[in-house]
């Protein structure tokens, strides 16, 4: 991923960022434990994950849309569907891996995390989804220091 190569995805569509979430009364109440909900998951990564090729958040690039996040706090399950920006994006696995890693690092251990590509939006979605679902492959990949470095770069906040 040298700087000299032409970006694969030079003109991504940019969507309006949805407004800040309005706080409700129970959100402000310190005694009520906040269950983890869809918006919170979305907030965890949408503001901090970068598309490796573009210094904009994934939400702005429409790589991840809010309605594709499904959280069940009681069952400790999170499911995230993401749409790679262009169908042949070779970065789909890396983006998916970065989303998965961010969630693994941010959520309590009890959560089962499923990250997959929005059906019909990618030529190799089955192959990518299978890799993302294989925790042994994910664990081994993250022991590769070069790959881990790329994932960490992907996840670093762009806000300075």
């Amino acid at each position, binding site marked *: 991923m040298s700087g000299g190569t032409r970006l694969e995805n030079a003109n991504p569509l940019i969507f309006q960022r949805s407004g800040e979430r309005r706080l409700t009364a129970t959100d402000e109440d310190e005694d009520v434990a906040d269950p983890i909900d869809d918006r919170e998951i979305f907030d965890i990564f949408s503001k901090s994950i970068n598309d490796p090729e573009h210094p904009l958040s994934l939400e702005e690039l429409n790589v991840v849309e809010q309605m594709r996040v499904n959280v069940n706090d009681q069952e400790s399950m999170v499911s995230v569907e993401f749409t790679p920006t262009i169908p042949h994006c070779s970065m789909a696995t890396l983006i998916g891996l970065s989303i998965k890693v961010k969630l693994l690092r941010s959520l309590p*251990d009890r959560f*089962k995390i499923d990250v997959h590509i929005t059906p019909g939006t990618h030529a190799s979605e089955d192959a990518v989804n299978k890799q993302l679902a294989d*925790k*042994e492959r994910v*664990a081994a990949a993250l*022991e590769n220091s070069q790959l881990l470095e790329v994932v960490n770069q992907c996840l670093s906040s762009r806000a300075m």
Partner: protein
Amino acid sequence: MNTFAAVLMVALLPCICINRKALKQEAGSELLYEMKGALELLQRVSAHADASCWYVAWSPAGTLLASCGGDRAIRIWGKEGDSWECKSVLADGHQRTVRKVAWSPCGKYLASASFDATTCIWKKTNDDFEFLTVLEGHENEVKCVTWAPSGNLLATCSRDKSVWIWEVDEEDEYECVSVVNSHTQDVKHVVWHPTQELLASASYDNKVCIYKEEDDDWGCRATLEGHESTVWSLAFDPEGQRLASCSDDRTVKIWKESTPGDGSTDESWKCVCNLSGFHGRTVYDVAWCRLTGALATACGDDGVRVFREDPTADPEQPVFFMSAHVPKAHGQDINCVSWNPKEAGLRATCSDNGEFAIWKYNSDS
């Protein structure tokens, strides 16, 4: 016999017949059997700090338990009084996660398979283990290592899609005698037949391969297809007549070898039982107890389950029912389940939360 007993017998008789018939039609239905078995937790041990515990293996004598994990270490545990204590730590063998460990049939050697692409052999000396040698050759992560019952052969498999067979001689020299490339993807697990020199492998390509040596050449003699996703683990039954496989497709399948009556050497394995609807997520491991015939599974839904075989069913169409289930046995995915080879009902499991647990299973509670 009094009237009451006679009436009861007459009333019960048709129910028993109906149950058997229904069982044959709906293999694996748990509603027709009460779960008579029970699993009692004996001890929980935090074995690998801040890392997954990927595998546990009992020594052949059943007195030691080896565990391995994401912290790159292998730990040997022994019982002192009522509790399991750490006897040895083998920390310098691998540069990455240790995925599986296996004891030699004599109990004097331990093999460890790692994501660092090597397999280490350790020799037991008095109360400790010393590093003996390292087996290199795989191109990337080694997913499994297993000793043949003879003690002279070892098999390893890897994400490089290959299965390697190694021979060991009396001078502790290891030599690779065969590399077999029958899978099209990552090979997750290899296991030897309990009595014959026959090997089975499970893969990310959703298939199981059976290997035999013919004319000094190891090759894949049969391919078992049926799983709809990665096959994670395998276990032969005590007699070696059937093979259990477990998968990311959330099922456990039982396969039986059928040799055609015409005397030809073409063997085929058929799926004779499909246990589906029991597991909520990927089934990572399956273990078949040599002493009791009970089948245990390790699942990504954090539950441990034990299945028993219906003794009255047709051997060509076995029926298994769930005998015990502990829903949240560990706080995270269960990676491995292993029956103690000497003490009936004693079982170990381990999890992504770095723990292993020792259980006692009773078939009739």
